[in-house]
């Protein structure tokens, strides 16, 4: 082992109390600077994954974000409903690859009952990909009142093939219509989906006709859908559809990508403020490193003088000071990176289960890591003057006794 490194390790061990404080300060600053960007990236990626299987969301006019959070993530009340004719039009219009109706309104033990069509199971990320939602047990629903349960809904509500249950009004448990909390209709589980990590894991999928029947929408004119997931044959078809729908005034077409981009912009503003704050925290950590380096000056000078007296060259003692700092800061930064990944990993899981989709594991990107790694050259810069001082120190400084 290199002599400087060997001594640096032991010198640090000798002042492990101070070392621990510096390392902790660096680690906490690093974790503070990285956790929020990590988590918000996880949310972004998780949300995007869930919206990849269709091009366009058509919902009642209102807030595009609310349309997404309600029809896609089942987290919010819908803006309102659309006449089923909008869905029928889209389904039959040329250039449509797929139009999937979504009808919300009921729940079972808090898991949303989602009325849809068999086209739901035909959704795929790319035309040539296999279907995105696949049945793990049983089969796709055929007739009304049959249910295909999402993996998480099945697991947590204890649903198995053949299980029957009664739906309750509302997206969440216990809401509105005090007089008629449960419907006549009984649902029967005929299939259970493979987990996807997305919001559909929480859904109980049933033919939309079941919903219409349950809500007494028996004539075509009275039938309603919450939203339509639209996929076109060609890219150009998306934009003509957007224009056509939005011009009609009855419905609103939302490009999920656009909403995510907007959401990201909002997040980015918050993050800019946060980045400023974390820069401050990193600055304080750098200061702590600097203080640590300088607090050890006297002790280090004795060591350095002794080493020089024993015949160690100036580069060796110069390297010693830099190595000590390098070790301290690197230890802190690595600990901080680990801490940030740990916190955003577990925080992401908690957040994901609230949001209804699995957040991907936190991903450390280089630009993000560099924010923390910048502490290393900063620390070395702080150590440079004492290192030069060490190289210039006379070996006799502390050796001539009294």
């Amino acid at each position, binding site marked *: 082992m290199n002599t400087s490194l060997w*001594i640096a390790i*032991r010198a640090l061990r*000798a002042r492990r109390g101070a070392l621990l404080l510096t390392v902790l300060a660096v680690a906490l600053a690093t974790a503070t600077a990285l956790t929020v960007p990590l988590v918000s990236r996880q949310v972004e990626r998780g949300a995007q994954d869930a919206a990849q299987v269709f091009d366009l969301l058509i919902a009642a006019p209102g807030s595009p974000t609310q349309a997404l959070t309600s029809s896609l993530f089942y987290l919010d009340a819908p803006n309102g409903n659309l006449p089923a004719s909008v869905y029928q039009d889209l389904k039959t219009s040329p250039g449509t690859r797929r139009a999937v109706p979504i009808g919300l309104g009921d729940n079972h033990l808090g898991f949303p009952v989602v009325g849809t069509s068999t086209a739901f199971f035909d959704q795929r990320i790319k035309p040539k990909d296999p279907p995105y939602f696949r049945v793990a047990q049983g089969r796709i629903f055929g007739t009304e009142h049959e249910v295909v349960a999402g993996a998480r809904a099945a697991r947590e509500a204890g649903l198995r093939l053949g299980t029957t249950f009664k739906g309750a009004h509302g997206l969440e448990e216990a809401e509105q219509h005090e007089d008629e909390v449960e419907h006549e209709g009984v649902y029967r589980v005929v299939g259970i989906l493979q987990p996807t990590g997305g919001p559909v894991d929480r859904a109980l999928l049933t033919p939309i006709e079941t919903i219409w029947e349950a809500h007494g929408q028996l004539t075509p004119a009275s039938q309603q859908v919450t939203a339509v997931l639209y996929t076109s044959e060609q890219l150009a078809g998306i934009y003509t559809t957007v224009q056509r729908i939005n011009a009609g005034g009855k419905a609103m077409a939302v490009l999920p990508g656009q909403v995510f981009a907007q959401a990201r912009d909002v997040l980015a503003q918050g993050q800019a403020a946060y980045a400023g704050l974390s820069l401050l925290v990193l600055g304080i950590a750098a200061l702590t490193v600097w203080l640590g380096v300088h607090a050890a000056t006297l002790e280090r000078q004795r060591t350095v003088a002794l080493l020089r007296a*024993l*015949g*160690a060259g100036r580069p*060796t003692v110069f390297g010693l000071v830099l190595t000590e700092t390098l070790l301290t800061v690197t230890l802190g930064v690595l600990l901080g990176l680990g801490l940030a990944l740990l916190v955003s990993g577990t925080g992401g899981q908690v957040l994901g289960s609230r949001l209804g989709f699995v957040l991907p594991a936190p991903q450390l990107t280089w630009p993000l890591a560099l924010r923390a790694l910048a502490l290393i050259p900063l620390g070395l810069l702080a150590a440079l003057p004492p290192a030069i001082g060490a190289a210039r120190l006379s070996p*006799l400084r502390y050796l*001539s006794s009294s």
Partner: protein
Amino acid sequence: MSGATTVALPPDIRTGSALTTHGLSFQHGREVTLTYPDLHLPAGAQLTITGPSGTGKTTLLHLLAGLLRPTTGEVRFGPTLVSAPQEGLREAFRRTQVGYVFQDFHLMPGLSALENVELGLRVAGTAQPHAKAKAALERLDLGKRLHHAPHQLSTGERQRVALARAVAHSPGLLLVDEPTAHLDRSRAGAALDLLCETADQLGATLIVVTHDPLVAGAFAQRIELGELGLGDKQ
């Protein structure tokens, strides 16, 4: 000093070189100029330097170790010009040829006895520093104190650790400053015997600075600074 030739350290010469000084003086600041008698010591000689406080004994050791460069004159150890201007040369000399037992030992407080000795060996660039450090301490009867920190050792033990560090790399020149300053009479005698024996085993030239008459009396060869007017302050 002028016209001094650069002599690279021959790697094979570890012990057994003659020490000579010529016209040596050293100026501390403006006021103090120390002048020294010429020394001609054959390989393996044992010498004590005595004299009242402030006559320049420690300074002489620093000059002999290459820690200081003389204002005039030169120091040679075998083929090496110790007083050479090249710092790198003097560092290499200190690393490989000098064993120095400082008056206050100067052990590193955060390191164990073993690590203190290993440190010296690492600086000297010796192979297998750990094993050799252990062996050096065991030879000085410190086998049971290897992992004690300096503050956990008695003064005599600390001194032996310092001696172990000074001799572990088999230097040719062993310089010892006031070896008995911190010891009582009976310990002082034992410490002195140990020094002389160790130097003998190494074949190293031993120079002991002391103002303790008991120590001085134990050496056949003796130089007295001050009294002889050789270490005059001017």
